[in-house]
């Protein structure tokens, strides 16, 4: 090559590099230093920082860095069109993500960024990797969506846009004001973490105020307390962006990359099971005393592996992911600390959605039972208790992953079936402290004979009603397969999960609920 042609090649290279650098720098500058500085002052990460913390260091590869608004006049002020997208690794496994950049046109939805989201979804689904949404968006972009031409161009052109078939796990975080599609993707996800101070709602408090002609408080409209305690849309609540991103990484560590593989196996931490010898101390000797079943769960599972979901919603039912001998399991338990463990409609919904999650991603289910039954009364009926109870029951019957049910103390009535009694689990077991019957004998005397404690004939009637409800009787007719000493629980569960491994399908279930609703 002559000197002059080498110079020309170098000049051309430099020119291309310069243009690339100029465009690159403009794109990564997002909505500009003023807006970014304001976020820093508030202790809030920007979209690109969030991506960096979500993925393993150095593993992020962006998709659509040079995308901008499809409206030519907005091209310069819309770096990445307000939604940063790309792929990266989480604990070494590939995942796809979209992070809303609120500094660019409020991360509003437009034609270009809609294409980006669709591409991420397509790749995640076709290649079998989780999809993550980091939500903070003002909703549909105005005025792009206005008018019938705007609607026709921007909305409704993808009939599967809000379809959820649970082929790969979806995780989401609400990290700021989140309206419209940002909210839709969060509530459709398998895991949704919310940062305190963020808001998830259909539309903004401003629009809500205009619609109802009164001042609407954003936190009341869609703050963390509402979604943690009333709607159950928040699986977890955290204080900072960093904690939210860590929570997503942790959640995904329990799940397979897609529905056609078994969940990953983790090393068993040292010290796992060390509290087993004393586990009975966590169960009060008196049947009228309550306790926090989460202490029992934490003692049984691998050390520090219990990842509770929806801790402040439907608290009488505990749901969470954990590991037993390194294997991912889904734990469903009654918590007598709340309402004595009597299942209410919120708990039914919570357990149902958790069963769907476990079954869709090949996670065996362990149920720990201590419930006097379902909450009954007018309020329960108004809240559609029969429908909720049957949704739960139907979900349990459609489970094709291994399910083991262990009765710690009480199991009464229909709740006996819902919590895996009899053939409603693959293995039905009980501690020697278990008591099983149709209803508390005292209530039965009242129902059948109309007698109260202390009234003449009550004691005789109760003696007749008070048939043995001990675990030995049900075990003697083999309607329960095993009686397990409390201190042997961890060992029993690990061994039984090995027995019930889905050998013929390499750990993959049938996913009969893969298209079930994402909320109820």
């Amino acid at each position, binding site marked *: 090559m002559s000197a002059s042609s080498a110079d020309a090649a170098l000049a051309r290279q430099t020119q291309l590099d310069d243009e690339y650098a100029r465009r690159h720098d403009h794109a990564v500058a997002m909505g500009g230093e003023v807006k970014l500085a304001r976020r820093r002052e508030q202790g809030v990460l920007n979209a690109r920082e969030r991506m960096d913390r979500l993925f393993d260091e150095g593993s992020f590869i962006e998709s659509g860095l040079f995308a901008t608004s499809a409206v030519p006049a907005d091209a310069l002020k819309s770096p990445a069109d307000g939604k940063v997208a790309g792929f990266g690794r989480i604990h070494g496994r590939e995942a796809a993500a979209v992070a809303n950049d609120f500094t660019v046109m409020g991360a509003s939805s437009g034609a270009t960024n809609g294409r980006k989201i669709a591409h991420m979804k397509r790749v995640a689904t076709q290649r079998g990797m989780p999809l993550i949404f980091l939500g903070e968006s003002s909703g549909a972009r105005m005025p792009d969506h206005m008018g019938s031409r705007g609607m026709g161009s921007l909305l409704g052109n993808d009939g599967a846009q809000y379809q959820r078939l649970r082929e790969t796990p979806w995780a989401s975080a609400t990290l700021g004001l989140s309206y419209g599609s940002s909210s839709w993707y969060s509530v459709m996800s398998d895991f949704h973490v919310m940062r305190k101070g963020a808001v998830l709602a259909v539309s903004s408090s401003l629009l809500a105020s205009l619609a109802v002609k009164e001042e609407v408080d954003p936190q009341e409209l869609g703050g963390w307390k509402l979604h943690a305690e009333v709607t159950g849309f928040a699986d977890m609540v955290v204080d900072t962006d960093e904690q939210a991103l860590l929570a997503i990484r942790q959640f995904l560590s329990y799940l397979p990359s897609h529905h056609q593989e078994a969940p990953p196996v983790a090393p068993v931490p040292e010290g796992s099971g060390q509290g087993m010898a004393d586990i009975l101390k966590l169960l009060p000797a008196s049947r*009228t*005393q*309550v306790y926090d079943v989460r202490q029992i769960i934490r003692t049984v599972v691998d050390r520090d592996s219990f990842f509770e979901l929806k801790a402040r919603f439907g608290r009488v039912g505990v749901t969470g992911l954990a590991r037993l001998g390194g294997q991912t399991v889904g734990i469903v338990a009654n918590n*007598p*600390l*709340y*309402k*004595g*463990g*009597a299942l209410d409609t919120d708990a039914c919904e919570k357990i149902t959605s958790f069963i769907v999650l476990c079954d869709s991603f090949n996670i065996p289910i362990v149920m720990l039972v201590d419930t*006097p039954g379902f*909450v009954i*009364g007018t*309020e329960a009926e108004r809240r559609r208790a029969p429908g909720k109870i049957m949704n739960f029951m139907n979900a349990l019957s459609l489970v094709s992953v291994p399910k083991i049910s262990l009765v710690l103390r009480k199991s009464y009535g229909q709740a006996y079936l819902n919590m895996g009694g009899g053939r409603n689990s693959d293995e039905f077991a009980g501690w020697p402290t278990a008591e099983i019957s149709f209803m*508390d004998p*005292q209530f039965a005397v009242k129902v059948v004979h109309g007698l109260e404690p202390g009234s003449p004939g009550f004691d005789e009637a109760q003696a007749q009603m008070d048939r043995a409800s001990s675990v030995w009787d049900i075990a003697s007719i083999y309607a329960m397969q095993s009686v397990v000493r409390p201190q042997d629980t961890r060992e029993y569960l690990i061994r039984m999960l090995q027995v019930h491994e889905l050998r013929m399908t390499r750990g993959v279930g049938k996913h009969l609920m893969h298209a079930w609703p994402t909320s109820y």
Partner: protein
Amino acid sequence: MSSSPLLSQVTGSVWEITAQVGQTLAPGDTVMVLESMKMEIPVLCEDGGTLLEILVEKGEAVSEGQPLAVVSA
């Protein structure tokens, strides 16, 4: 200083009041115990605070959602 009521999770009766007005409560402390479904069910102050007022008496019947006490947030 804002305050928030502790609501009854269940329909039942007040079995025992275990905390006193003015007392500082740590997150998870028990304020009173209700009796419902033959069980003794504690009413917990989940986020902690100072107990400002107790709205019920021992033995009183309470319904689900009824305010039982007021705690400073």
